[in-house]
């Protein structure tokens, strides 16, 4: 009896130790990303964990603004996950400035990332002199339009600013809302406003303004904001657009209520997710006076500064699996394609993507304003958009307010 008890105890002990050994052997890494990609990420994580017994990835999901806040809170309490989705520009820069991100420069050199990833994407992920993230997408924004509506109204793709305005007038006359816009968080309306700034300021001044080398309180910004107000008053945006949710523009655009929406190349994937026929929609670069540059931004996965060597390898291994060709082929609608790799192509059913990337290479790009600006300055622009639309502020006051916010930020 005693012997049996000893055997049982020994076996139990072995099992416990064995389990503990198995658990401790697995490198556990956490990953925070957008909930719009959840349907792809969940099965990918599951498959990865099954295929790699020595690594356990745990994913958590947030909405667009939620992930920005969650990461900042985590950074404050030094509890950032091992890897997290982030954008380039000021959003990614915050973690670099505060020493929270792993500098991947050496790792990239040792592993030949420069031969694999596009130079543009690596540049946008290089902030403060360090490669601060694994590049996951390179996005450019263009004007999506409904081909049927354009045809019905006899509108050709506008090639000049004047033609664009004429197209808006024709659409309005035919009972359509020319441009989808949703200002709940400010950034969707900003996409139109920044193109007006690009149009009136030109490329050189716009770039200098975005890097705060030139003041925003200038005639070009005033003209841009005045034109925006003119469009609002003309009914070129939907009623109540100032507090509309940007996630809902696909409803007004897909239903044919709005004829145009300003979106990135990921929109093809969203159209497919919503069972809309991509071939019914085309894209053109907003025809600004200068060179019709498109706004662009990078997305990346940032790695925690405190990663051990094993954790870093596990994170990169997971990222490479997440962005492998098989997964991209299977879950294409949940990626911002093409991948930021040399020679990468979009899936065949995403008809507009390759053309947009090609146009951006020809026309050039500028950094999207809410990535060029710190949040409080971006909010000053968003407030100016709201106030000008509602007639509470003049374009002159709007330009002055933005510059005041920039100066306040610089004085911090």
């Amino acid at each position, binding site marked *: 009896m005693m012997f049996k008890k000893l055997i049982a105890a020994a076996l139990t002990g072995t099992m416990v130790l064995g389990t503990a050994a198995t658990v401790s052997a697995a490198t556990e890494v956490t990953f925070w990303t957008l909930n719009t990609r959840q349907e792809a990420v969940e099965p990918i994580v599951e498959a990865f964990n099954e295929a790699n017994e020595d690594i356990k990835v745990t994913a958590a999901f947030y909405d667009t603004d939620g992930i920005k*806040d969650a990461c900042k809170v985590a950074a404050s309490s030094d509890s950032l996950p091992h890897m997290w989705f982030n954008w380039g520009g000021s959003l990614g820069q915050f973690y670099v400035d*505060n020493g*929270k991100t792993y500098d991947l420069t050496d790792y990239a050199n040792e592993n030949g990332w420069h031969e694999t990833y596009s130079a543009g994407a690596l540049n946008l992920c290089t902030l403060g002199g360090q490669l601060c993230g694994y590049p996951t997408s390179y996005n450019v924004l263009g004007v999506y339009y409904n081909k049927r509506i354009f045809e019905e109204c006899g509108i050709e793709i506008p090639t000049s600013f004047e033609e664009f305005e004429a197209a808006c007038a024709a659409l309005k006359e035919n009972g359509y809302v020319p441009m989808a816009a949703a200002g*709940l968080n400010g950034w969707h309306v900003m996409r139109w406003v920044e193109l007006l700034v690009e149009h009136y300021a030109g490329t050189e001044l716009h770039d200098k303004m975005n890097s705060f080398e030139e003041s925003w309180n200038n005639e070009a910004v005033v003209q841009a904001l005045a034109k925006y107000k003119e469009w609002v008053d003309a009914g070129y945006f939907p*009623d*109540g657009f100032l*507090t509309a949710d940007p996630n809902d523009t696909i409803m007004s655009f897909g239903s044919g209520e709005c004829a145009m929406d300003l979106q990135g190349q990921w929109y093809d994937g969203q159209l497919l997710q919503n069972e809309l026929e991509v071939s019914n929609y085309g894209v053109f670069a907003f025809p600004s006076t200068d060179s019709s540059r498109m706004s662009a931004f990078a997305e990346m996965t940032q790695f925690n500064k405190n990663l051990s060597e094993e954790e870093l390898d596990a994170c990169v291994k997971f990222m490479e699996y997440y962005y492998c060709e098989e997964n991209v082929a299977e879950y294409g609608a949940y990626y911002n394609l093409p991948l930021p790799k040399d020679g990468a192509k979009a899936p065949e059913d995403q008809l507009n993507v390759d053309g947009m990337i090609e146009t951006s290479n020809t026309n050039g790009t500028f950094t999207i304003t809410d990535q060029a600006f710190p949040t409080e300055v971006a909010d000053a622009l968003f407030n100016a958009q709201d106030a000008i639309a509602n007639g*509470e502020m003049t374009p002159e006051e709007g330009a002055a307010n933005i510059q005041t916010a920039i100066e306040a930020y610089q004085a911090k």
Partner: protein
Amino acid sequence: MKKGKKSNFGAYAFLIPAAVIYLSVIVVPVFYSLFISLFKWNGVSDREFVGLGNYVNLFTNDPTFLIALKNNLIWIVLTICVTMTVSLGFAVILNKQFRGRTVFRAFFYFPCVIAPIAVAIIWRWIYNPNIGFINQFFKAFGINYKQTWISDPKVSLYAIFIAALWQGIGQPMILFLAGLQSVSPDVLEAATIDGAGSVRKFFSVTCPLMKETFVMVIATLIVAAMKVYDVVQGLTGGGPNNSTQMLATYMYSQTFQYNNVGMGTAVACVMVLMMMVVIVPYISFTAKEK
């Protein structure tokens, strides 16, 4: 005598777990917040002591804070005047004997169990200028009236308040119902015999006898009004152009979006001080009553 002292120590020992939790999750964070409100800090880097600079800046150099403060005060007034009156009205009606009373009680309490962010989503669609219920309702009756509701800074705060009212009447209604049921029928009967009418009975007998209920309802409504966040964030995010900014939404923006943690906690401390103005008299009043 000795026995009594021993048992007191034993009682204090039983308080230790609760005291540890209370101190660690309430008292310490409150004082820590007060402490960091005296610094300029982005939440990650080194702190710079600025004394009362954040508070001075809020009251003298921050128009958004003043808008938020004004909006919170408007919200408190609306809550006391409208939410309390409506919930009391419903409680009085639902306190009467009639067929289906329980169903109606559940029906009017139901919005209270919905998460505020879900309430915001529901009302976002109700207020949609093109396909929303309200504008479509007008249209169905041939009324040519179109309002952008939450996008119009003149009405957006009140539009959000209506959404909050829809959700918020359930809780005070239940408290008032409990208060109404505690009023002795004998007293009401005596008042009837003395010739008092329904209105007179309500204001001269029922209301005074429900004084404690009123104090509790008013205090909880004011505290809730000071903290209002979810429904505003979900419907307008404090916009357009800060017209619906509240202290809680502004505190969140300062702390988590602008990385001005010192400033954000200063806003939080102002909120706490304003709530203390309500809570302390409330506690002292109820203590006196006992």
